[in-house]
């Protein structure tokens, strides 16, 4: 747990959080006793085996699920209030673009809902499209793009309205390594420039290590946090930092953490 020497309240604060799904086969303990504090400007990655509750935790922060135990606050408020205050942008595991809207139309969707002016909408759509390298694709429909391009469009959509918190659920899962590297770099730049707080779910150890200030290792049944690793890497991170001894050491520690969590299953 991080020490709160800063002035502000933590951006995300979970205490003894538990979340149980009632299903026909009995209850599923998706999260149990999760305690975590995320400060403003943190880049926190969540890593862990399939089904360990990463998505569930992110969704709870976004008030898309409701914890059954413990407390959770976002910007000091309860998550529902934070959602209504439009505190965050969310990138889903699947792109989920609306097929009847063009790419630009999809990106403008949150802007329309939040009541931005026409001109502002155009301007922002243009900007984020170029950020994810999709200039010129604004008038295409989603199904005219490859899966990777769709995923980038969905990232652009989450960036368009410039929320302070960005929650991303395996945003780069569908991309190949080269594109992924490029987007990783872009994301780091964006984060450095805007001081956003980012929650990031991934399956990839190098990705988690490369991006994060903090890596949260989770383990399933019940979903819980088994390790929180503070990154000692500098804020400035060229791609080849991944060959540094420090990087490899952190990656090793993450892998160990994961492996121990895996002990009981697979």
């Amino acid at each position, binding site marked *: 747990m991080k020490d709160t020497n800063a002035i502000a309240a933590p951006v995300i604060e979970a205490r003894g959080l538990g979340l149980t799904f009632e299903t026909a086969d009995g209850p599923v303990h998706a999260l149990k006793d999760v305690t975590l504090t995320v400060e403003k400007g943190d880049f926190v990655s969540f890593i862990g085996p399939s089904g360990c509750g990463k998505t569930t935790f992110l969704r709870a922060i976004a008030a*898309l699920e409701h914890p059954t135990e413990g407390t959770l606050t976002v910007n000091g408020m309860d998550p529902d209030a934070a959602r209504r205050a439009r505190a965050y942008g969310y990138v889903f595991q699947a792109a989920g673009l609306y097929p009847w*809207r063009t790419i630009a139309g999809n990106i403008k969707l949150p802007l329309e809902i939040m009541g931005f002016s026409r001109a502002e909408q155009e301007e922002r759509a243009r900007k984020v499209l170029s950020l994810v390298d999709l200039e010129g694709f604004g008038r295409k429909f989603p199904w005219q793009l490859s899966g990777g391009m769709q995923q980038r469009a969905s990232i652009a959509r989450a960036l368009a309205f410039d929320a302070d918190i960005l929650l991303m659920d395996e945003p780069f899962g569908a991309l190949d390594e080269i594109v992924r590297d490029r987007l990783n770099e872009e994301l780091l730049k964006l984060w450095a420039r805007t001081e956003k707080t980012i929650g990031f779910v991934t399956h990839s150890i190098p990705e988690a290590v490369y991006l994060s200030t903090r890596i949260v290792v989770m383990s399933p049944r019940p979903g819980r946090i088994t390790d929180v690793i503070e990154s000692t890497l500098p804020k400035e991170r060229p791609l080849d930092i991944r060959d540094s001894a420090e990087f490899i050491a952190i990656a090793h520690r993450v892998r160990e953490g994961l492996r121990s969590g895996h002990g009981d299953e697979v």
Partner: protein
Amino acid sequence: MRSVLPILTVLAAIVAVWYAGAVWLNSQWSYDQAARAGVEVTFGEVVSDTLKQDRPVLPAPHQVAEGLWTGVTGQKVTSKRSLVYHGWITFRATLLGFAIGTGLGILLAVGIVHDRAMDMSVMPWAIASQTVPILAIAPMVIVVLGGPPLNLPPLIAKAVIAAYLTFFPVVVGMVKGLRSPEGAQLDLLKTYSASRSQTFWKLRLPASMPYLFASLKVAVAAAVVGTIVAELPSGAVAGLGARLLQGSYYGQTVQIWAALFAAATLAAGLVVLIGLIERATLARMGMAR
């Protein structure tokens, strides 16, 4: 266009079966007549007779075509003997009923999707409503609407019956359509903290369009049936339904079949029309691939 040949083939097959059926079904009468007249007939004579009877059990295709042709071109379109005139009367009521039924159906669907109480209570009764034999209540509806204090013109009364048959497919399709967005699509709007009406206009409605059009095609055919049913008891004065009934009453099989084909053509034409509107709409929405 690739379908032209297959359709023609199937039509040719149907016409062939039809001719065979006409010979088969009408021959009894030919033989009976011959027996009554006390003459012997050859099979060839019977066949040629079966294809030109006045009151055939099953009129031959060329007889029906002729009936249609004279019905359409044999007189001015404003004449009461013109199928165009009767078709027009049916068409107007159909369209009005279709509009009313579609509007009602969409409203009900919106209510059902947004209100749990409506969802739980209305749907079973909407289903039950369609099991009521419409032909049984049509006369009563006509009497009630046409008489005082309402005194509605027959057009409206017919449209009400057509609407009764229209609304159901629209409700079913529209409820399905408005519910078609997946959890993820809804969650996205939740993260924007979108209001219910924003969710409706920006997600549910566009997502429901393919479902809506699919049901509109079913509904418009049902509206034609409804109008024709309503035309039977509305005094059997005008419309394809009245034509049908008159033909039936006087055993004019050719006239029945001509009116029947006119009605089916009307329905099929409307379905095609909706298909075109669907194509245009979905293309504009980028949903036609």
